[in-house]
């Protein structure tokens, strides 16, 4: 009995020794402080202010070839709309040149005789909208905005003449969890995923590679510590570091960016902790596979950071990707983290959503740790 106790105690002591050594190494190196504190804050700040899909004010050129009351009224409706900054253009040619030279996003042409044709019985009146299609997302919003102004103009005109035509079928759209459809609300939880990936994967990808490079792995192998102790001891300090960064990110999001937190801090902590299993596992796997820090860092960037940016549903909706790419996203832990964080922040503790996602993260993490375990032999070749 006391024999087991001693063994357990010495196992713990060894583990603690590895952890203390790793923690000292982390805290002593100024560059890891930069990664752990300065980078996350800078990135969250940049992501929060720099990334937005909400088209605010569109520069539009209005070419009015018609002097009628209706033409002036429609032009005025555009000018007074909060969506547009109207740049006057004298004729169609100069309007088109403004569009060509990327000075405006759209040109609206109200052709000559617009008013006359609109008021006559058997002619049809058209306004023409030329949109810069190079940036399709903005183009779609410009379509929507101009349409809204156009329909508003027609409705007001109809009302004035007592011939109001109600839209026969209307769509009442409501956005759950994000009533104003603010893109920042889903982009900030996504940014946290990217930052956590950066910390978890990029930082740990260097830990064993560094020991290989410096030759200190030999010294570590010469000690009585076991593989398991090395793995746990090397992971835990980074786990704590990443959790601290996460807490900093959450506070910034709530206080500075006014994000709602509809779920609980408990769920947030749990999800973050679970996500770190695959994130750290991936970093360790890279670290034992690559023998140099340079190669490890590059691989970490390519397989950890970039997929978290591009393939996690952070910016680009996974459902719209081609099937082969959707299949790849299944093994990207950031994908599950994104859904979970967005859910906890915007929707609440929906355990029916969180538990399956956490299980997926644990499965991917188990795979990574298993592979690391197999590759980490306690010998040098």
């Amino acid at each position, binding site marked *: 009995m006391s024999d087991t106790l001693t063994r357990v105690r010495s196992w713990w002591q060894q583990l603690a020794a590895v952890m203390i050594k790793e923690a000292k190494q982390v805290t002593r190196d100024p*560059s890891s402080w*930069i990664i752990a504190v300065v980078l996350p804050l*800078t990135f969250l700040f*940049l992501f929060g202010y720099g*990334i*937005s*899909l909400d088209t605010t004010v*569109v520069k539009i050129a209005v070419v009015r070839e018609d002097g009628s009351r209706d033409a002036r009224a429609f032009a005025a409706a555009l000018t007074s709309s909060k969506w547009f900054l109207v740049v006057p253009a004298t004729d169609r040619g100069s309007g088109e040149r403004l569009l060509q*030279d*990327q000075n405006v996003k759209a040109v609206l042409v109200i052709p000559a005789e617009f008013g006359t044709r*609109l008021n006559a019985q058997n002619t*049809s009146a*058209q*306004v023409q*909208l*030329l*949109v*810069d*299609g*190079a*940036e*399709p*997302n903005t*183009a*779609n919003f410009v*379509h*929507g905005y101009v349409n*809204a102004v*156009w*329909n508003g103009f*027609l409705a007001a005109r109809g009302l004035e003449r007592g011939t109001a*035509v109600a*839209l*026969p*079928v*209307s*769509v*009442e*759209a409501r*956005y*759950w969890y*994000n*009533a104003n*459809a603010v893109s920042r*609300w*889903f982009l900030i939880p996504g940014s946290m995923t990217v930052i956590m990936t950066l910390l978890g994967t990029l930082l740990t990808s260097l830990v064993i590679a560094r020991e290989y490079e410096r030759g200190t792995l030999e010294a570590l192998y010469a000690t009585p510590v076991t593989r398991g102790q090395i793995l746990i001891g090397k992971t835990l300090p980074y786990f704590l570091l990443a959790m601290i960064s996460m807490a900093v990110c959450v506070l910034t999001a709530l206080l500075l960016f006014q994000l709602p937190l509809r779920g609980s801090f408990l769920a947030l902590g749990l999800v973050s902790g679970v996500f770190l299993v695959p994130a750290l596992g991936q970093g360790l796997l890279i670290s034992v596979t690559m023998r140099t820090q*340079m190669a490890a860092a590059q691989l970490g*960037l390519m397989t950890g950071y970039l997929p978290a940016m*591009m393939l996690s549903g952070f*910016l*680009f*909706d996974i*459902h*719209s*990707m*081609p099937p082969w790419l959707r299949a790849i996203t299944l093994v990207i832990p950031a994908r599950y983290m994104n859904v979970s964080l967005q*859910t906890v922040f*915007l929707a609440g503790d*929906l355990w*029916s959503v969180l538990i399956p996602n956490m299980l997926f993260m644990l499965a991917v993490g188990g795979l990574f740790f298993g592979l690391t375990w197999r590759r980490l032999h306690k010998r040098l070749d």
Partner: protein
Amino acid sequence: MLQRLLAIVRKELITMLRDPRARWALIIPPIIQLFIFSSAATMEVKNIALAVVDLDRGPYAADVQQRLRGSRSFTSLPRYANVAAARSALEREQVIGILVLPSGFSPDLAAGRPASVQLLLDGRRSNAAQITAQYVSTIVAAEGTALSGAPPDANAAAAAAVTAGFAPTPNAALVIDNWFNPNLDYQWFMLPNLVGTLSLGVALMITALSVARERELGTFDQTLVSPATPVEIALGKLLPPLLVAIVQATLYLLIVTLLYEVPFRGNLLVFYAAVLTFAEACAGVGLFISSLVHTQQQAFLGAFAVLLPFALLSGFATPVENMPWWLQFVTTINPLAHMLHLMQGLFLKGASVVSLAQDLVKLLEIALCTTVAAVLLFRRKAA
């Protein structure tokens, strides 16, 4: 002096290209990234799954669903008995929204009364949800137009096909024409952007690591004791990335225009001038970082810390116009922002040389600043 400079350039090229693996590492990963990211980076909304709660069960409700099924944007329209059941599908992100066709929908329309449908959307994916709402509005509005008996004006139908609204006055139409990218193909937007962004990464990384590696290997002192002056050594390190950038840009240009069939409507000379100036600006930043740091790891981190803000504040992912004014100001000193503007102008828009010159001049100014700063710092550190 020229002779010594050329000798340094040759030496740098040899170190960079000697190892076949390193040679491939310069070319292959960016091309793989070009392929993957151009497929991944889309804000078009496709394969939409929309839950339908049909409380009406009338002929018009069936017709709306038929129209949705006929649109190629919607791939699945699972039906649910009530909103509560559909909600759990939405929570699990199986559907992006719920279309509720209320009871009384068909009777109202049959009687000529205005009717409305409800669309509940997942705000966690608000961008995709907004676009989905536009699609649904168009389709539902078409149902209304078909009913109101208005003559199906060809132009109005064309406008309705691409936009959310429709004309409530039968003889008035808003005709939309998308320039430069008539089908609003997202890849046409992304590929020219990737040409700029990927060459940024390469030019920056090569120079950022160059001095740091020599410091680590101890060969830096050897170069310093050679007859070449520090300025010559610095310039010698700045030139090879330009060569790599030219080769890569040519490859990208071929892939983007031949394989993806994105039009190139601009001037080829302006394209290469832009690539060269941009690569020089990035190489300057890289050398600056490299002169500051001591190890490759720090250089890597430094390059990364610069790369990300450059990429974020350039209009690569989201438009510059959406940023607050003070960040828009920051983008004017970001070489990538000008590069992307140039690429969009050259590929899709065929913008006039005069308008491109603005960005080119800005890029040149930035390149000059970074090069001078890098060379000065390098000379100070080397002395």
